[in-house]
């Protein structure tokens, strides 16, 4: 194969990333025009077109070269990447829709927001495609830089600044620990390429102190990013302080990118499972219990969703733990493949429900009021039935009630871990899920059964509630999330052709 065809093959393998970069650069170059005046209406459509374009390119791309490495082994394409990327880019597109309305209503809209979103998405894609720990790290940093900035995007809001600073400091610590892990990995494997790491693990690298330290540091670094206990302290403050649209984006993007990377890393080092599997199991169990317990006490919906995100990180870590079963006989191998598919579906369900829920909060926010607490949702079902019942649906999906996408995701992960024969994890998952239903249903209670605190919309239509916003971005996002959550809950097979991970 000649050099030019090789280059074309490499570039077509990362085409979604190239699309994101291209559109982001166009937005940045055009920033002076897009900032104010008539051009400012174009920034959000450009951002949406970037995410949607990358999604279409991904869906149209052939799977011919799947399994091959690109750029001399720096990156790869496989079904884990393509299914994860599908979820990520869909989430990114929906986040643009939410951002468009929310930022405009709070007077925060700037073209940079969308450029940073697209670059952040490309970083998460790089994490998924990384075949080398250095590329994984670069992707992680590219993604995280964007998320730090988006968390602090409301620059005059002290809470937003605090969120950005906290997120940055703890994120930088996590990155440093992860870099130490990569360095020690290089020490034991003499390479950072995943295939070489895998053969080093097969030679027994994870029995050596340096290998053990490397594996644990990598695990800790990734656990920070998905906010698993005990590395979750940043998440409630960041979720609460960041502008709601940024919260929706960072909650989903960081989780999707990091979990897919986590699955890949743990799949690579499956041969040394005795080193890291106990740690992952402990972190998963702690996250499920602590996340669900603290979420019960929250009255701020954003904080509650942060702690629920900790719990969901725990459920997803159950799927990551299944990677350790790969070399334990046929059942174990089956469990690891089921867990990959299950985790990606779970991420899709989680992203839809979470973006939908934050979308509802964004929908209810205006220039002088940022909807965040349970009180803001009081009586929503009677004052704005469509939005109210949409929020109910998202809460039910997050709780994992049957006939929603969240149930299918949880069931798939549950089934995978049972196939792997880890009853303790399965039981914890079931019990804590039941515990979580309480606080999700409390939101439902506030929406459906509590009286609205806000004044009823006046008959003249000048009330606060009488804003017809259904056709704006956030309305579209909520609608898509609703349809997809119900659709996938009833017909999960509809999307399995994109989401099944094959090995």
């Amino acid at each position: 194969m000649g050099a030019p065809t090789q280059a074309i093959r490499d570039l077509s393998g990362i085409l979604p990333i190239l699309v994101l970069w291209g559109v982001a650069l166009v937005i940045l170059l055009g920033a002076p025009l897009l900032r104010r005046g008539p051009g400012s209406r174009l920034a959000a459509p450009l951002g949406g077109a970037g995410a949607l374009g990358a999604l279409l390119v991904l869906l149209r791309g052939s799977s011919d070269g799947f399994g091959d490495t690109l750029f001399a082994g720096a990156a790869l394409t496989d079904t884990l990447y393509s299914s994860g990327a599908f979820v990520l880019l869909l989430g990114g597109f929906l986040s643009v829709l939410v951002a468009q309305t929310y930022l405009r209503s709070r007077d925060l809209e700037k073209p940079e927001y969308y450029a940073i979103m697209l670059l952040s998405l490309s970083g998460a894609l790089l994490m998924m495609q990384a075949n080398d720990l250095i590329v994984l790290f670069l992707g992680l940093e590219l993604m995280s830089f964007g998320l730090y900035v988006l968390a602090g995007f409301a620059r005059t809001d002290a809470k937003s600044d605090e969120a950005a600073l906290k997120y940055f400091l703890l994120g930088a610590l996590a990155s440093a620990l992860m870099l130490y892990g990569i360095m020690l990995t290089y020490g034991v494997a003499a390479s950072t390429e995943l295939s070489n790491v895998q053969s080093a693990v097969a030679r027994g690298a994870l029995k050596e102190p340096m290998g053990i330290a490397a594996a644990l540091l990598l695990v800790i670094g990734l656990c920070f990013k998905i906010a698993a206990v005990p590395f979750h302290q940043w998440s409630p403050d960041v979720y609460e302080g960041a502008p709601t649209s940024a919260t929706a984006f960072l909650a989903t993007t960081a989780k999707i990118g990091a979990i897919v990377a986590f699955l890949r890393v743990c799949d690579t080092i499956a041969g040394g499972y005795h080193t890291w599997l106990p740690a992952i199991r402990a972190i998963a169990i702690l996250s499920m219990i602590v996340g669900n317990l603290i979420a019960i006490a929250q009255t701020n919906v954003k904080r509650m969703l942060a702690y629920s995100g900790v719990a969901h990180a725990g459920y997803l870590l159950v799927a990551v733990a299944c990677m350790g079963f790969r070399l334990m006989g046929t059942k174990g191998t089956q469990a690891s493949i089921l867990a990959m598919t299950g985790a990606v579906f779970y991420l899709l369900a989680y992203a839809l429900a979470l973006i939908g829920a934050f979308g509802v909060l964004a929908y209810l926010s205006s220039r002088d009021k940022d909807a965040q607490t349970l009180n803001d949702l009081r009586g929503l079902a009677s004052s704005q039935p469509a939005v109210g019942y949409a929020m109910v649906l998202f809460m039910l999906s997050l709780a994992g009630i049957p006939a929603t996408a969240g149930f299918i995701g949880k069931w798939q992960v549950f089934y995978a871990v049972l196939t792997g024969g880890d009853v303790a994890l399965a039981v914890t998952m079931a019990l804590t899920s039941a515990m979580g239903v309480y606080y999700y249903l409390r939101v439902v209670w506030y929406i459906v059964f509590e009286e609205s605190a806000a004044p009823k919309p006046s008959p003249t239509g000048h009330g606060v509630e009488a804003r017809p916003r259904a056709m704006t971005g956030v309305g579209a996002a909520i609608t898509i999330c609703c349809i997809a959550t119900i659709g996938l809950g009833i017909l999960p097979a509809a999307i399995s052709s994109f989401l099944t991970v094959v090995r």
Partner: protein
Amino acid sequence: MLGRYIPLLVAVVIAAIIAGAMVVGSLILGPKKPTRFKETTYECGMTPVGSARDRFPIRFYLVAMLFIIFDVETVFLYPWAVTFELGSRAERMFLLTEMGIFVGILLIAYFYVVGTGSLEWGTEDDASSKALGKAKAARPPIRFGNENSGPVSLPSGARKAA
């Protein structure tokens, strides 16, 4: 291997000795008769105006940040430059393309920086230039003096002439 750095080490040692000798020498040899005026901040013979501990405008931070970013870019240019000269014609074309992409992307970053006016200085009516104006207005008349006379105000006519 390390022998090559001995001249460097010698240069460092000589520099340290000379600098140290100057400081220590002036400490030992210089006459010291401190007075109140000698103890004040030396500001080119002017009486100091207020404290030197002043908040820097945040622009300095921005400039330093952008400096780091483009500094890191040049760090990548060194290994490229010393590799480039050894390559064949085809290899040079390849290297040129790769560096072209790298620099091109950062050129876009540069255009963005310029486009947002982040490198402009003092055209914005922001708080820092307002503060500067206030400080200028509040500055006391420049006073001259020495340790014998103490500070003396020159007649206003003399100041205008100067």
